[in-house]
């Protein structure tokens, strides 16, 4: 093979490309990470705001009383609303996940939260959106696990066990939705979402055999 022929042959490597599904998964991972960072920035800014205004509140008691009553009224209204309560729960969950030292623990926390929040409930139109967000969050955390594990953080076996549990959970959910005849239409999007996650998880588990 001559030098020019070799260069020509090198150029054929351009034809090797990842699948579009793989590119979409990578993009999903990147955007999720970027969004998490944005959430953190908002929380940091709130923290700075309160820190900055704390001095004003301590020097002007009337202002602080008025703010206290205002905050109490807001909290009262908020606690009477289910979906807002759920938002508080989510904030707490995001904070826990963010604080976890490695991806395996992040995935476990997110998945455990989804299981404990929704496994016993009948999924209806009123909680389908919240559940969809919860399972999407768990799925993103799980998809960011590195198949081979990470040295000193988690092992391949731990990853696989978690994935097996996740697939069983998704299977149970699929069965539950199949048997649920009421609200069938309202949860059809959820059914598609769960099927797609289950397929993704099964593909990932299949790859363990190649390792």
């Amino acid at each position, binding site marked *: 093979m001559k030098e020019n022929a070799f260069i020509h042959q090198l150029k*054929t490597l351009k034809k090797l490309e990842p699948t579009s599904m793989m590119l979409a998964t990578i993009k999903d991972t990147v955007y999720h990470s970027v969004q998490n960072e944005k959430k953190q920035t908002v929380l940091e800014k709130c923290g700075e705001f309160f820190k900055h205004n704390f001095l004003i509140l301590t020097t002007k008691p009337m202002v602080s009383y008025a703010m206290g009553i205002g905050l109490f009224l807001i909290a009262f209204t908020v606690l009477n609303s289910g979906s807002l309560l759920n938002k508080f729960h989510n904030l707490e969950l995001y904070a826990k996940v963010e604080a976890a030292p490695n991806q395996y623990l992040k995935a476990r926390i997110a998945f455990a939260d989804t299981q404990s929040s929704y496994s016993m409930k009948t999924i209806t139109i009123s909680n389908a959106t919240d559940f969809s967000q919860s399972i999407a969050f768990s799925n993103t955390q799980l998809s960011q696990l590195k198949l081979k594990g990470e040295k000193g953080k988690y092992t391949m076996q731990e990853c696989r066990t978690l994935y097996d549990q996740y697939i069983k959970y998704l299977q149970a959910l699929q069965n539950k939705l199949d048997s649920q005849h009421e609200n069938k239409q309202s949860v059809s999007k959820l059914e598609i979402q769960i099927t797609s996650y289950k397929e993704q998880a099964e593909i990932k588990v299949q790859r363990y055999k190649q390792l």
Partner: protein
Amino acid sequence: MDSIKNYHIFENSYKQFAKGVFRFIYFKVSDYELAKDLTADTFIRYWKVLKQGDEIKNTKALTYEIANGIVIDYYRRKKEKNHVSFDAIDERLLGAFEDLEESIDLKKKVKEVFVVIKSIRKEYQDVLLLRYVEDLTIKEIAQVLKKKENATRVLLHRALKTVKEKL
């Protein structure tokens, strides 16, 4: 406004370079799943660089520069020498080829190329892959490999000379 501008730059860069970056990393680590993780890490770091607000002269060179750094960090963490072992191409990389004969032919060609590539120095491999597979200019390769343009030109010349001797 800046964040919208950054978002557009990021979107365009992802569309244009994700495939190439994935391929470049795959050639360096020879593991499809690992290449996926490291490509994601590359674009997460790229986003962080965009957010810093420094002027970016060449997005392509920057993306590959980050990818190269990510792979170097990976091998440093693993305390392993960077290697390209290429006994088999992952079938998923041949997904675009519906024609079975075409993909068999391609596999054969890729193997032939890699027998030669495997036998040369790592920096020669990098310069050849960046120049002829990823179509980077000498200036861009110099940025990726953190070398001067003249030194990069010499490196490419020597890489080709080495290849010629091996053929």
